[in-house]
């Protein structure tokens, strides 16, 4: 009988969404979306950026209110009013941008907002420490609960985040892009944890744009496109091309554009560049029409190299030649004057002006070009911005839209547009497709190649092996501030690059 009970429970969805709709000014984010999630299953939600994944999760976790539709949770129709309500129902979320306090200890983070108290409302530190330790031990890690969160790696913080979610009773756990900052090993550990939770009967929603991962961990996959529900498939019955087709509504046959054939003109030459202990004797040559891929682990010095070339960080020794002339680049302003553009990795913190309009973001580095006698010309501004919105097919209702309101892929295109508008001769892009979906990714790859074909030299830093291999004409592998290896883009293999990047 007991078994049967569980069976019936497993047969009924713990969460059922019927016809959920949600609009933002100018955008219909969700249009009559349906979803059924069962207890003890891992249900992946996939879709391109702007497909409505995040909005749907926000509605389930009570951050947004739905405009229309029904939410049935645990067989009762429910209006999820806010995040507290969602938590009290047993819905917890492990957020994409981790919601922890870096200067507090682990146990304080786990029990933030629900501290145990003793007499007179004093906090029961001892009990919290013991409980924290117990929760953490189920994950097979041995943190001291009194460690400061700031002393943990981002993967370890994520475990604390999960522990925090599990510290209250949980029926459903939502993971929103949980692996975006994890290494492969850390990802494997996270998957073990998720599978354990599943066995314990927790319903798990897993949102990700990484299809390989989704196929590794999910039981069922629901695809959203342009805010609409496209369908749900069993992993067993589906393959990746089918899901990609559902996501983009078309086949992505040529994943990467054709590479450059001949490289003649050495445009940028770097000799023996050093910086403190971070960069050691870096030598490289970049040709026009070349995409030079730089691969390496986080901390290998790849982003630091970019910062030095762009004049953000000072170099201790070494020479930089552009088009045969020795250059002393000591600020981004000088770098831009010398025809260098730099698209940083963290686009929200260092790239975009989120509170300003699309138009203003695109012209930010080209103010000189759109002014007459020191005054900005409205017509020139609009035509320059409009030209790139069109060329990069940036999806925005108009040029006055704040960048804040665009999807991740379109934000990245705005950032790229800013640099294209400068008409650089050298463009450094750091993780150009991080956190954006398959379709936008392919578009950005195509744009970068098109740019190279027009004579621009591109340095592309990436930690995605398929991207490095698919895009680069030449690949440099960095390790602990040095260049450890040089490979030809169409001959290198994933294994070669990985061994080179991990070698001690």
């Amino acid at each position, binding site marked *: 009988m007991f078994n049967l009970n569980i069976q019936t429970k497993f047969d009924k969805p713990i969460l059922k969404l019927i016809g959920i709709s949600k609009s*933002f*000014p100018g955008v219909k984010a969700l249009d009559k979306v349906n979803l059924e999630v069962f207890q003890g299953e891992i249900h992946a939600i996939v879709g391109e950026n702007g497909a409505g994944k995040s909005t749907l999760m926000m509605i389930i976790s009570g951050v*947004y*209110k739905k405009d229309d539709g029904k939410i049935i949770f645990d067989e009762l129709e429910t209006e999820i009013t806010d995040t507290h309500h969602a938590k009290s129902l047993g819905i917890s979320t492990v957020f994409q941008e981790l919601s922890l306090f870096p200067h507090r200890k682990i146990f304080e983070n786990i029990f933030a907002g629900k501290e145990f108290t003793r007499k007179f409302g004093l906090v029961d530190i001892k009990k919290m420490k013991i409980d924290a330790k117990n929760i953490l031990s189920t994950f097979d890690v041995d943190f001291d609960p009194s460690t400061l969160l700031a002393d943990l790696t981002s993967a370890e913080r994520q475990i604390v985040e999960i522990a925090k979610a599990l510290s209250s009773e949980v029926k459903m756990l939502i993971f929103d892009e949980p692996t975006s900052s994890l290494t492969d090993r850390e990802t494997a550990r996270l998957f073990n944890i998720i599978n354990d939770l599943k066995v314990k009967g927790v319903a798990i929603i897993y949102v990700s744009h990484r299809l390989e991962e989704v196929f590794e961990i999910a039981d069922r996959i629901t695809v959203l496109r342009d805010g609409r529900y496209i369908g749900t498939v069993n992993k067993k019955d589906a393959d990746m091309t089918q899901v990609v087709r559902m996501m983009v509504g078309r086949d992505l046959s040529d994943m990467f554009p054709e590479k450059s054939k001949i490289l003649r003109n050495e445009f940028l030459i770097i000799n023996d560049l050093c910086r403190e202990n971070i960069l050691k004797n870096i030598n490289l040559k970049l040709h026009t029409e070349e995409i030079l891929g730089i691969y390496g682990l986080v901390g290998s010095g790849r982003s630091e190299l970019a910062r030095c070339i*762009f004049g*953000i960080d000072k170099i201790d020794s070494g020479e930089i030649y552009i088009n045969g002339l020795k250059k002393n680049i000591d600020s*981004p*302003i000088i*770098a*831009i*004057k010398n025809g260098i553009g*730099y698209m*940083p990795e963290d686009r929200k*913190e*260092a*790239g*975009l*002006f*989120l*509170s*300003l309009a699309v138009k*203003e973001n695109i012209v*930010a*580095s080209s*103010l*000189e070009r759109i*002014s007459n006698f*020191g*005054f*900005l010309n409205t017509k020139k501004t609009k035509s320059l911005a409009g030209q790139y919105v069109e060329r990069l097919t940036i999806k925005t209702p108009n040029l006055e839209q704040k960048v804040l309101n665009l999807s991740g892929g379109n934000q990245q295109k705005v950032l790229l547009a*800013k640099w294209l508008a400068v008409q650089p001769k050298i463009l450094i892009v750091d993780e150009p497709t991080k956190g954006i979906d398959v379709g936008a990714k392919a578009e950005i790859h195509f744009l970068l190649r098109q740019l190279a074909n027009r004579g621009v030299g591109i340095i592309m830093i990436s930690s995605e092996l398929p991207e490095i291999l698919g895009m680069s004409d030449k690949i440099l592998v960095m390790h602990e501030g040095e260049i450890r290896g040089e490979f030809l883009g169409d001959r290198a293999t994933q294994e070669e690059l990985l061994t080179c990047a991990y070698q001690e």
Partner: protein
Amino acid sequence: MLIKNEDSEKLMGDLKSYNHYVDKALNRQKIKVREKLAFALKTIFRIREAAVLVVVIIIGLILTLSSPYFLTIENLKAIAIGLSTDAIMAVGMTILLVSGGFDLSIGSVLAFGGAISALFLGKNFNMWISIIIALAVAAIIGLINGTIVTKIGVNPLITTLGMMSIARGATLVVAQGYPLAEIPLEFTVFGQGEIFGLPVPMLIMLLIVIIGEVMLRRSRFLRQAYYIGSNERAARLSGIHVDKVKMFSYVITATLAVIAGLISTSRLAAAFPQAGIGAELRVISACVIGGASLAGGEGSVLGSLLGVVLLAIVNNGLILKNVSIYWQGIVSGLILILAVTLDILSRRRRVR
């Protein structure tokens, strides 16, 4: 012509449905008009300057209807002269706020500039030389503020709070605690004179506001302030001249404070060491009412001017209505909080 029974019934039916159709259409039209009106209102309130202007006009109308003294040339002149110094300082403050900074020292710098000019005028220096010396002092104060903020990285609150105290102290040292009143008659033109019946302080203020508005809205150099205020790190990486613009903003703000100090000294024919106390917060309030944000990236000179005007006519109204002067602070504070609250609420509705 004979109408058969069934025909007439059919006709009646048609008529009914026709009436129904007309009603519907009319209703639709009504809804359309209402929607359009709502849309127009929304647009007005989306543009902060327009919203503040509407409020200013409404208050002006109320005061005109309720007090015979409000809409008189004398009263309007008094308001214009009274708000000139604040409006001049608001121009600099707006530029600073847009770039993500602010300056608490302007009230003290106003007093210090006035005292310096009065000191030299009292020693029979040429009027223009005295003015130039005062402006040079202003530029130095601005450079000090700017250098400490941009090059060393002390936050603007601490830096300008310190400067506020220093400049006030320096004023007291220079003036020895007394008003400096040896002002030649020719100097009083800046505060008391009129050109074609228009008060000189107002004309100076309008000139500065117009230049400030055009420069901040359109000039390539000052336009960079919006980028800096929106995201300083991204601005640096975009090749925006972050330090230059910030430095300039502090210098221009201090300079405008001293210009306000000169006008105030000229108007009262004396430099009072306690001049401009509280001006910094009043000016920041006015800018914020006019759409600037302490977080940076937003605001316009025109909006700030309207903010100054709004506070000034409300205070004028209180005086005309014989409300005790002690109420002014309470009312100004309420307006500030109300303006920002309304702004946040309207944004929230837009986002949700």
